[in-house]
């Protein structure tokens, strides 16, 4: 039996070459700046590297220490709380407001720009501004008192409240981005579906539940995915506002302190690997979920 060898003409070959050549810079960039450092970090996590000099191989010692480190358990718990907050509040607000805004035809762009604005403000600036708002002497508390709602005032950045206060600021910055993603998805929905539903006598909630949500399912899954992954690696707002003080310590702030303040880059590497591993699990889980949904 003769084997059929696919014959490629010159044009196809050129196309293949061009495709490979186009991907090459991104691949090289990814290889040099993501894959290689990741491999290096994995190796560092198995050493006692202080971030400066030589690395002595110590096996799984860093991981064993990590599993018993109360700071790690607290930080990981805080990341999970952070994730729970971000999976609910900004996504719900984004969906509801997106649904409401999708019906607005006049000034939609203006609304979109206004809601998106916080996203373009740098974390350092927004964090500093909100830290001032949380000041006990002239911030939100003073406003609350003036409004006769003194019972609501508290020390917003104290260890008991810091995590939620900082998460609030990050959400303020984050949900506008989600809204833009959701609005783009909502605009892809065929208006005929809503018209038919209206003719059938469906209410707004029924339209949201039976038309909107199923149609933007893929976008919502993507949003949940990035929210979960970013919740594991979030850093800027916490660092700017509390420096990861007790009560708001996250894996990333713990990592930074170990790498740059305690001269324990190997140990910091093990935290980074845990973050990578959790992110990988999330990606894998979502990959399977998406496949299931597509099937």
């Amino acid at each position, binding site marked *: 039996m003769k084997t059929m060898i696919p014959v490629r003409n010159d044009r196809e070959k050129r196309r293949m070459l061009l495709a490979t050549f186009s991907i090459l810079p991104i691949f090289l960039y990814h290889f040099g700046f993501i894959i290689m450092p990741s491999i290096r970090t994995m190796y560092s996590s198995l050493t006692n590297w202080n971030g*400066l000099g030589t690395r002595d191989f110590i096996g799984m010692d860093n991981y064993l220490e990590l599993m018993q480190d109360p700071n790690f358990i607290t930080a990981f718990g805080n990341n999970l709380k952070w994730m729970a907050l971000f999976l609910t509040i900004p996504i719900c607000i984004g969906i509801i407001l997106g649904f409401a805004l999708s019906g607005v035809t006049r000034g939609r762009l203006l609304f979109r720009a206004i809601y998106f604005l916080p996203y373009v403000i740098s974390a350092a600036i927004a964090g500093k501004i909100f830290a001032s708002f949380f*000041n*006990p*002497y002239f911030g939100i508390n003073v406003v609350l008192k003036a409004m006769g709602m003194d019972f609501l005032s508290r020390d917003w*950045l104290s260890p008991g409240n810091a995590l939620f206060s900082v998460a609030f600021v990050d959400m303020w910055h984050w949900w506008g981005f989600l809204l833009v993603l959701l609005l783009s998805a909502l605009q892809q929905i065929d208006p005929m579906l809503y018209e038919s539903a209206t003719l059938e006598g469906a209410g707004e909630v029924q339209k949201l539940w039976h038309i909107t949500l199923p149609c933007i399912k893929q976008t919502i899954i993507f949003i949940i995915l990035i929210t979960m992954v970013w919740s594991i690696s979030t850093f800027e707002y916490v660092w700017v506002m509390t420096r990861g003080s007790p009560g708001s310590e996250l894996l990333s702030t713990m990592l930074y302190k170990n790498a*740059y*303040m305690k*001269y324990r880059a190997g140990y910091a590497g093990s935290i980074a690997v845990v973050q990578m591993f959790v992110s990988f699990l999330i990606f894998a889980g979502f990959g399977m979920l998406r496949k299931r949904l597509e099937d």
Partner: protein
Amino acid sequence: MKKFILVGACLLLMSGLGFAAGTNDDGKAQVFEVSVNTTKDEQNKLYETVFQRFVDEYNKKYNTGYSLRFVSGQGMDIINTRMSSKDKPDIFTIDSPADANQFAKDGLLLDMTDYAVKNKWKESVFDWAYSLAQVNGRVVALPYGYEGMVLWYNKDIMKELGLNPADITNLEAYENAMKKAADAGYIPVMLGSQDWPWAQEWYLSILYSYTGRNLVKNTIEGKPGFTWNSAPFRKTVELYKSWHDRGYLADKRSYVLTSDDAINAFVGGKALFKLEGTWAPYWMMPLDAAERDKIGVMLHPAINSTERPHLPLAVGGMWCVSATTAHKDLAAYILTGLLGQDIQADFLNNGMDVAPIKVEKSSFNGLIPTVQVMWNMVNGALADGSFGYTTWAFYPPETRVYLYEGIVNVLENKLGIDQYLTQMDVLNKKELAQGFIPVIPASK
């Protein structure tokens, strides 16, 4: 067209990489990099002028063609990363002798002993500071600043409460002053650690040093029989916690107040005392004369009968030279030049760190009176050896971070004092075992 774009993009990428690699136009490695951690424009401008002057002088004297690359804002995170790479600056700043210890352990610092001897650094630099510049008897750094912790007080509030700062020298008088201030609606001691967790460390630096200087020295050095979890340190932490519980320390809000909030609240007349470093004239300089005159400076009162009030001392940071520099002579020329009286007088008058050298007294004349008082305290403490030990200058790094992070959990009742001190002991011993070499000058 596509080809041109592609070639253009490649050229752009290559020029970017070339720029990042730090080569100069003609490819010669005659660029000398000085990298500093300062971020304020005025300070950077002065530094750059001074370094440029030295490089020009050197070029003229030795007929060389060096050009200066001055890089500012290089904090410890950036320096650590750069020193573990091939892109090392020639001269750079680090924060403390504890950092020098780490860098020297890995052979990253140039041994400058021969240069130090040749240029007689020992004759200019204070003995204690010179000892901090050494690891295993070799000179590996040059301290660029010296500082101590003091208490600022509001003169008006002090008067209103019928208190005399000269009488507040012991625990009883200090607690009485704090109670009076709290009863009158003032915050006894202002402290802001929300953006600056090190503020907790400032106070602990004072209190541990006041517990007993020899005790601290021996404990850090891991001498037999000395542990952090001993009765004197336990008593000190209990005292600190009791002040916190009574609302004496920033009204229990230090970790919701930024350093700006703390200084504004103090200057605004909300607090009797404010813990400060002698490095802080830059806070005073922008104030008008009337506001400045309200601020008095004193040593923290004693907290027990064994240790008298003293000044916990630190070097503000250190100049280091990379072990791999190809321009050792120029580096030594610059560091020696920095010890010049005219240079230090310029730094002093600009509110910058001053090297631990015998600066001529006339250089202090133009300073604000309160700043002069602070400098008198520092220089007086040095002259009679009555200095103590700040955490950032003398403690091993991991122990140091735990010291100020763990205390918040103690104050919040999430961690027992025994557990806190035991963990400090564990970390201190671990770091000694890992090669940390304490360099702690003896005090009197």
